[in-house]
């Protein structure tokens, strides 16, 4: 699970082009949206594509993403349980 969390942090930094942020800056339970990392609805769509492309999980309704993408912790848990890749 730890490796997956680090992998996710890396992916978020590169895909979303967060130039000034390092893996150490993202705590597992930090909120990703709103106050924490400050991601927005367009970033959510990018994360949905990562879920599909890298882990084989297809989300049909973007609203599902709200709970899944709350933090690195929740993302990792969801992916572990549902990944097909």
């Amino acid at each position: 699970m730890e490796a997956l969390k680090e992998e996710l942090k890396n992916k978020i930094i590169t895909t979303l082009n967060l130039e000034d942020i390092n893996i150490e800056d993202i705590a597992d339970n930090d909120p990703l949206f709103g106050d924490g990392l400050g991601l927005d609805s367009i970033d959510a769509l990018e994360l949905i594509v990562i879920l599909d492309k890298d882990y084989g999980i297809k989300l049909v309704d973007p609203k599902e993403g709200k709970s899944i993408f709350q933090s690195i912790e929740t993302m990792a848990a969801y992916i572990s349980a549902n990944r097909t890749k």
Partner: protein
Amino acid sequence: MTKKTYINGVGCISTQKTFDTVFLEEAVYNQNETVLSIVSPVYKDYISPAMIRRMAKGVKNGIVASALAMKDANVENVDAIITGTGLGCIEDSEKFLKNILDNNEEFLTPTSFIQSTHNTVGAQIALSLQCKGYNFTYVNGAVSFESALLDAKMQIEEDEANSILVGGVDENGDYTLSLFKLAGRIKKENDLPSEVLNANSSGVIYGEGASFFVLENERKENTYAEILDVEIVNTLEENEIENTIITFLKHNNLQISDLDAVVFGFDGNSDSDSYYRNLSENAFAKTPQLYYKHLSGEYDTASAFALWMASKIIKTQEIPEIIKVNSIEKPAYNTILLYNQVNGKNHSFTLLSK
């Protein structure tokens, strides 16, 4: 009384050092490349990391140039934002299209699609200024910028706005440049060193840039110039240009001899430079003639660079050697005509005065 239009602030990001300078003192005529690239400002100084991460070059340059213009004009807000761009955000366009084709329409992400819409620059500026006023974007080749300028002048005349941010932005995209080279739009390597004035081959030296202006209906201490008139004509034969210019000037109670300088859009393309050559050798033989695309490169909104240049000339009353076509001089530089066209189409005439 119809309100007049004054250029009260300018900002220019180009392939020369045109910010943090007085004028063109650091400009260099690069004859050894077929494509010129931007001299970048430090984007982080103007745009937050959260916004920068999504922006392509053109958007970043547009935001910085507009910020510089607003600072120069000493305004914090404007009533309207009008931009012109020939190719729009071509980098993001290329990215999205390449992804579609490479991945057979799978695993696509929205960011580059969203950023590729032509009105992105205008929209991002509105967002950062929280400006809810009139916001238009023109995309029509070499008159994209002049369309924006004409619209802005009309807004002021109609008393719809007191202050307007107007700009021209274009960025280079690698793949698109390679296609332009294939299509013969850009000079070949064998044609170097390039000659923009005495064009001896077809094609142009390509460039990119963002030039923004704050236009207001009030003359202020820091006013650069007044925009007297702007005209756009799609198609003109070479032998019609002189008369068109004479009529244009007549509408403004002027003749060619009243002009203190004329700015031509010579771009080194031997196929169409004749439009300027004839005027240069005859009707304007006694007028100080200037050119700029050897510095800015040719791109659809390069004429915005020309307006920046002309505004600076009227303010400083000095013409840098590097932009002179001939050595005619005048005691003062108060009335300037700018004429541009590309491939015989999209002719524009802009008249400035002190």
